[in-house]
């Protein structure tokens, strides 16, 4: 049997798991941001005809799943596994999104790192021969997250400048093995849960930056790659401030970032015009920016090798009230266009 383990914490997908199609659904605020034109579906408002935010989020996730299958010209019957993730308790949005789909379902949770975790789980199933076609889809909704993790949405709260804004959006990718096209996920590194003691539920950027640094370092070590192997390293939702903390943490580990290092949360909004403070967060942040902005520009040759480091603050409102800190995790997937 082929050894797929690379180093201590990574996986080599060998010839690579093909990304055949992608789709994104975003709210009006995300569409109004600088990446708006890269998203497929834009909601007219944050309710989208539903009575509750949870319903809206499930509807977004469902539509992302359906349109990614359409884009891949596949029927639900062709798909072996659908892996989904979201932020709500009991993976609420996921279950209600897929309940009418005749597809085997795996729900995964690593907070906002859910998309990368989903791709890793699906990728392992595909390369291991347990499936041949898979859908990975994740979502987050600002208001649904806000009412679960913080306060009722109509409460007049002043947010600190390091706070972030949960992205209302869903992103989906269609994965196949063997890969029909040159665009593949070739490598992955699994995150460890890292906790540097951040207790402020608004300070997610700082809480997650150490996890991102840890996973990036492990990825480079496990594959013996220099950081500039990638044209773009894209973290999930550190925000502008968390990204600066990450840069410093990498420097302290002797990693000089001589390639493009960006953060989905810092890219998705115009922080000068939109009142989002440090930037976007949530599963929708990495999922919409990666499946929209990144995957749409790879065929045009803007980048050939991209490392997505999806970051997740494993924030439990109960434990934080009990004076506990916020553990974090970051999962990385390396995407590239194979040389033919």
């Amino acid at each position, binding site marked *: 049997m082929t050894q797929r*383990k690379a180093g201590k914490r990574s996986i080599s997908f060998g010839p690579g798991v093909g990304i055949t199609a992608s789709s994104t659904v975003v709210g009006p605020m995300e569409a109004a941001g600088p990446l708006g034109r890269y998203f497929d579906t834009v909601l007219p408002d944050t309710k989208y005809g539903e009575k509750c935010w949870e319903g809206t989020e499930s509807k977004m996730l469902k539509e992302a799943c359906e349109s990614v299958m359409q884009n891949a010209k596949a029927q639900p019957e062709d798909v072996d596994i659908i892996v989904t993730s979201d932020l709500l308790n009991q993976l609420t949005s996921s279950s209600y999104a897929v309940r009418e789909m005749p597809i085997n379902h795996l729900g995964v949770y690593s907070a906002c790192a859910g998309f990368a975790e989903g791709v890793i789980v699906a990728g392992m199933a595909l390369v291991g021969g347990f499936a041949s076609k898979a859908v990975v889809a994740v979502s987050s909704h600002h208001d649904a997250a806000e009412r679960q993790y913080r306060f009722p949405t*109509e409460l*007049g*709260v*002043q947010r600190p400048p390091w706070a972030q804004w949960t992205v209302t959006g869903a992103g989906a990718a269609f994965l196949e093995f063997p890969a029909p096209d040159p665009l593949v996920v070739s490598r992955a590194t699994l995150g460890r849960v890292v906790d540097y003691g951040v207790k402020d539920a608004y300070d997610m950027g700082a809480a997650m930056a150490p996890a991102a640094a840890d996973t990036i370092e492990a990825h480079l070590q496990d594959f013996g790659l220099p950081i500039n192997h990638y044209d773009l390293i894209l973290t999930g939702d550190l925000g502008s*401030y968390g990204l600066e*903390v990450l840069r410093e943490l990498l420097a302290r580990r002797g990693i000089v970032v001589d390639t493009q290092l960006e953060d989905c949360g810092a890219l998705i909004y115009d922080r000068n015009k939109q009142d989002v403070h440090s930037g976007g967060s949530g599963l929708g942040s990495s999922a919409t920016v990666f499946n929209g902005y990144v995957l749409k520009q790879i065929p045009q040759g803007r980048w050939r090798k991209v490392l997505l480091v999806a970051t997740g603050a494993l924030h439990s409102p109960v434990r934080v009230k009990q004076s506990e800190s916020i553990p974090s995790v970051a999962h990385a997937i390396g995407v590239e266009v194979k040389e033919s």
Partner: protein
Amino acid sequence: MMGSNVKRPSSSDPVRVEHQMDFDAVAAQMRPKPLLARNLAVAYLVGGVICMGGQAINNLLLSLGLDKAAAGGRTAVVLIFIGALLTGLGVYDQLGRFGGAGSAIPITGFANTVVAPAMEFTREGYVLGMAAQLFSVAGPVLVYGLASAVVSAAVRYAAGF
């Protein structure tokens, strides 16, 4: 694969402990600073305007012939109504994001803390949702407000004035 080469992460790893030690300093240095002067000025302005409005209502009621105590009580009722209405219209959360403590501390802010959960949790029904969650934000204010009222009344009674 398992066994001797399995390394325990975190505290037993000196490199990681070192990273952890100066992390707080790194994060604090990078963290965007709250605009203290701006926030204080805006809170003063927003809070001041709300209180001026309250005073205007109070003066109006006094001019209509109400005595001081009756006018005070009715002023509070009118302000609570305005706070609740602005919450319902989706304005008060915007005001709160802008004005901070200036809009949170006056009685209109208290109305906001009751009406916001009422609106939010109505979707789970009027009994188990709205009614059960109505004081989820304002509850602590009521509990400690009532408790301190009892204590201060007891002190006043004991001191005999």
